[in-house]
């Protein structure tokens, strides 16, 4: 609950961050090097804080918060969007990456989905979403029954299931979907973005409850980065908008209903 955490990280020379396996939030190059918008920002800020490097380990979304709580990571930088319940479970930094929600459907959008409510209304429709992810909750909150929300372990699996007709829609943030579609190079797919009625979410670096001092230090450097324009330089090549992140705050996002 004090500065000791940062001192500790400085002493060991690196911070352990959890990332997802979901381009463009995170990318793993053929040589195994971790990049992507979220880790790049974290790396830069930690450098400025005096922590030489980050050690990234890829984790399932569902395993991130328990891992953080169990002290396996010092911070999660993985496109873990701020939501009130999550704000209660972890200590977020100010917003970093913002994105709207998108749905991937078959060409021509045969079922005419525009929102999660549309999926709820069509009793034969199934939607795929990452387990424990924002999209899963949005779908559930929109009234899609549990058994029609298919928990998909990762983006490629979701894409595959959609192509194979196992699900009717696959929902992820816009940029993730775009990246998937680009790689799949499949003319029979169509992206619906943004999903109507779904808010724009922003993630932040998530720290363990109790590490607020570290979080605050992080926020200071993040603010400087945003101001100097370097922030935009890091994230915009990946397709994210710096303006979006700067237009909102943690307090707003955590309070949102």
């Amino acid at each position, binding site marked *: 609950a004090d500065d000791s955490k940062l001192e500790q990280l400085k002493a060991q020379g690196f911070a352990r961050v959890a990332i997802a396996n*979901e381009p463009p939030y995170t990318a793993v*190059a053929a040589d195994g090097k971790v990049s992507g918008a979220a880790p790049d920002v974290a790396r830069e800020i930690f450098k400025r804080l005096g922590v030489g490097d980050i050690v990234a380990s*890829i984790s399932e979304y569902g395993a991130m918060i328990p891992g953080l709580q169990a002290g396996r990571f010092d911070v999660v930088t993985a496109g873990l969007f701020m939501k009130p319940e999550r704000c209660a479970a972890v200590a977020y930094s100010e917003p970093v990456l913002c994105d709207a929600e998108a749905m991937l459907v078959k060409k021509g959008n045969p079922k005419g989905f525009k929102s999660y409510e549309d999926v709820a209304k069509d009793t034969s429709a199934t939607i795929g979403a990452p387990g424990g992810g924002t999209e899963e909750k949005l779908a559930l909150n929109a009234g899609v029954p549990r058994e029609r929300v298919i928990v998909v372990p*990762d983006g490629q699996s979701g894409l595959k299931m959609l192509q194979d007709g196992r699900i009717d829609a696959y929902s992820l943030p816009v940029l993730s979907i775009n990246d*998937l579609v680009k790689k799949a190079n499949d003319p029979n797919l169509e992206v619906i973005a943004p999903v109507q009625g779904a808010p724009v979410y922003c993630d932040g670096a998530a720290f363990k409850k109790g590490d607020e001092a570290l979080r605050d230090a992080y926020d200071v450097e993040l603010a400087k980065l945003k101001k100097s324009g370097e922030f935009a330089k890091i994230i915009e090549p990946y397709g994210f908008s710096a303006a979006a992140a700067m237009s909102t705050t943690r307090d707003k996002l955590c309070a949102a209903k």
Partner: protein
Amino acid sequence: MTQWSGYLGLILQGALVTIELTLMGSVLALIMAFLAGIGRLSRFFVLRALATAYIEFFRGTSIFVQLFWVYFVLPLAGISLTPLQAGVLALGLNVGAYAAEVVRGAIQSIGREQYEACIALNLGRWQGMRHVILPQALLVMLPTFGNNAIELLKATSVVSLISLADLTFQAQVVRSQTGNTLMPFTTILVIYFVLALIISWGVRSLERRMARGLDGVRV
């Protein structure tokens, strides 16, 4: 697929982690197997009960649950392990419980007459175990130990769940980075199979070497 060779490198890194896990897990499993296997045959009730509880618990719950527990719940009790340690611990304890039953079965499979010969020659309990029973039982255990090692190798694939970059995990990474499913999965299936073949080959040659004494002239 120009980058395929690069991603193959990733998979090979994963193979190293898998091998490391298998080796360290096997060592732990072997230790636990002998402790619990012999413990289960002990004259002392407490030892028997401890060994039985260990064996039944680890054979009874799924390896997944054990892994999640070791990884996510133990730290809450103040015991924090690296993913590798957690993986080795869960795999070793789990497979060790199965192997303990192998140890017990092998010891019991040695005929009563061998124990009686030990008594008639006035060997103590431990002397008989050490010089007469265990050397024979070892040969009985060996083939099943080989199978256990292969089970352990296969079980390593679940450590991908606790973000340990083993073969399966790297295949998933490669899959999401390249968008190709067939290549990484086929590759790791072949690698797993080759590793399994190496294990069974190793165990078989060890077995041959040990069995040689039983019908050949000792030199």
